[in-house]
């Protein structure tokens, strides 16, 4: 009796697995697949997934929409960094550090926030993505330059790394549109 029940159970399990798989194909969201498919083509899958999913619009976005969400994340991350830079400047750092901080503030403000981000948004929304490619690459460059300005004693390593990573994920998504 027990062996019969066992065989039936195993048979049922296989049925359930089979059902589940086909259910999966029908029930899984296209957009999840798009987000995953897109993020697999970026240098930082986890960052890409968490950034995109933090914005509810990502569920219904096409690749251009996903790129725009990432640009927004870049903007937020860069703005946060700029605020951090400003507070560091106000805490009376040594002249050498202060000089590097001022340089960074300039790069973040004039480079990323008022140039790279608006250009990327306009390029993506108006349908000429190559300018977004150049600008997101530039944003990664600015973050790197800021970091290098401290010759090893950077108080901004976490911020710069973050901005760099976000910029490079953004650029990878933009490249899918070219």
């Amino acid at each position, binding site marked *: 009796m027990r062996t019969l029940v066992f065989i039936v*159970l195993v048979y049922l399990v296989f049925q359930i697995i089979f059902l589940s798989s086909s259910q999966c194909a029908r029930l899984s969201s296209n957009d999840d697949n798009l987000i995953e498919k897109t993020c697999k083509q970026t240098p930082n899958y986890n960052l890409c997934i968490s950034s995109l999913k933090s914005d509810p619009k990502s569920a219904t976005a096409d690749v251009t929409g996903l790129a725009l969400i990432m640009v927004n994340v870049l903007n937020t991350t860069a703005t946060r960094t700029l605020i951090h830079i400003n507070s560091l400047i106000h805490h009376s750092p040594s002249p050498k550090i202060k000089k590097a901080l001022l340089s960074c503030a300039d790069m973040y403000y004039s480079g990323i926030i008022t140039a790279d981000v608006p*250009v990327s948004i306009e390029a993506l929304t108006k349908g000429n*993505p190559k300018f977004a490619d150049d600008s997101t690459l530039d944003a990664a460059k600015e973050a790197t330059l800021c970091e290098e300005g401290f010759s090893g004693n950077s108080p901004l390593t976490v911020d710069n790394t973050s901005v760099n990573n976000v910029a490079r994920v953004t650029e990878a998504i933009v490249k899918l549109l070219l």
Partner: protein
Amino acid sequence: MEDTLPCSYSPLPNGPPTIEGPLDKRRPRKKATLIIFSGLLLLLALFVAITVGDYRNSHNVHENENDEALLATSEPSSVSIPSEQVHSVSRGVSAGVSEKSNRVFADHNAISYPWNNSMLSWQRTSFHFQPEKNWMNDPNGPMFYKGWYHFFYQYNPNGAVWGDIVWGHAVSTDLIHWLHLPLAMVADQWYDINGVWTGSATVLPNGEVVMLYTGSTNESVQVQNLAYPANLSDPLLINWVKYSDNPVLLPPPGINKNDFRDPTTAWYTSDGKWKFAIGSRVNTTGITLVYHTKDFKSYERLDGLLHSVPDTGMWECVDFYPVSKMAGKGLDTSVTGPGVKHVMKTSLDNDRQDYYALGIYDEKTDTWVPDNPNIGIGIRYDYGMFYASKTFYDEQKERRVLWGWIGESDSEFADMKKGWASVQGIPRTVLLDTKTGSNLLQWPVEEVDSLRLSGKEFDKVEVKAGSVVPLDIVSATQLDIVAEFELDKEALERTAQSNVEFSCGNSRGAAQRGALGPFGLLILADESLSEQTPVYFYIAKGTDGNLTTFFCVDQSRSSEATDVNKQIHGGYVPVLKDEKLSVRLLVDHSIVESFVQGGRTCITSRIYPTKAIYGAARLFLFNNATEATVTTSLKIWQMNSAFIHPFRAK
């Protein structure tokens, strides 16, 4: 070429999420989760079977808590997580800088460069076209009309980065001395409110002028629009009118709304119609579409494609024009015939480079067949910074003239600081190279010579292997240099063969010594050579004993600044038997243009020194080969400014 476009083009999926099961709460759906549910069910069923000898098929899904727990324990292995933890922030290859270049400044402990006003203002060119300030990109609608050369361009009136694009306008009687005019067209219609983008001019035989250009509509759809001069008797063509029934063309079926831009100049064919070409893509295949019209207002798309190449992506700024197989002059865009080849040119969106291929155009069937069936997209116009280029036929001097957009290779932050970005290349004449038959020759228009001031000649200067020779000239930032080089024959013969493949981009620049190269000039160098831009020949001897010549521009030590491009650009140079090696260089502050072997190979570079500027800039000859001695003869002219300024009516 009877390819037809597919009728449907499947866009990327972006539908709403599918409705879920009995519960309203949203949660991520994963195949694995359901498989795990089935495992849970098995356990449950087993438990039930063991205790009660019965089972129940249950879809009783245990929500969230179980989901999280399950997900935590079994991440689906089909998802790859290539997380690159960037600890030390390196600019890397993605920013166009090789790791190697940082080693050069290792002992300086490179600090990101604080640009000062003196360094930035030096960068502005003296005799290349650029607006007084702000951003410029593609050349638009170049033409000759009533004694004036007209030049239009993509312009941002609001900043030094791309955006808010409108049409700038300038005129000149000689392609060198330009006068700025008011903006020709702004974004004031629903069909170009998101961008007045690139277009081309067609001058009709009756003297009318037709401008076809791309507009980005209020919904960001790329459409083609018609514009024409408000007053044809105004030689300066200051005011323009947009056709009341624009747009004249929408993206056709199968073409994405973002893949339809940059119409060419039209050509007239024996069936009494005007035709123009426009680039696009289907999936990843770049294509050129052709339309025909009688009045520039209504169009028919031709079946078939003029050209297509798989895996090249979007084709921008397509250009299509005839070159003569014999005579050394240009041809009107409508010319066809047995003595004519046609150039099919495209700009590649995904690598920002311009390519062309030569072939034969049959105007009766509207087909173009490349001379080399394996040419694909073709060869580069220019191995450096040169994009969105466009030609026009100058009927005054019977030549075809090429314009090219030369962007910046510094950071956008520096562009914002200096308040401008981009220049145009010096206009070049384009001719078929009748000696090789397989490439074009590009050469600065002869009017450039009128800028030559004092000249200095150096005759047969010997530069031994491993040496640098300073050239004593007045100033080194605005120069026209014509140089010839000869290697000693002995070294050429005795040098061993090598099977190592050489390319400028993959080399270590001028520091990489070979038996027969590199040798050339060090431009925009300071006295101590802490900053220098080598432009040089490199000769490789292949396994067949044949010599292959390359010309490279090495930016790796061009500046102590760390936010500028440090790549080595260059390409192969066809050199025929008994030819001396020759190069012409135009140096104009932050732009250097190299024209090798009469224009067979061209390289445009942007250089941003911090020290080798103004009076501190020097010029040297160098020979970093290990074996060969090089003998050079050069002529060097100081170049006058073109004094480009706004037009002032008298």
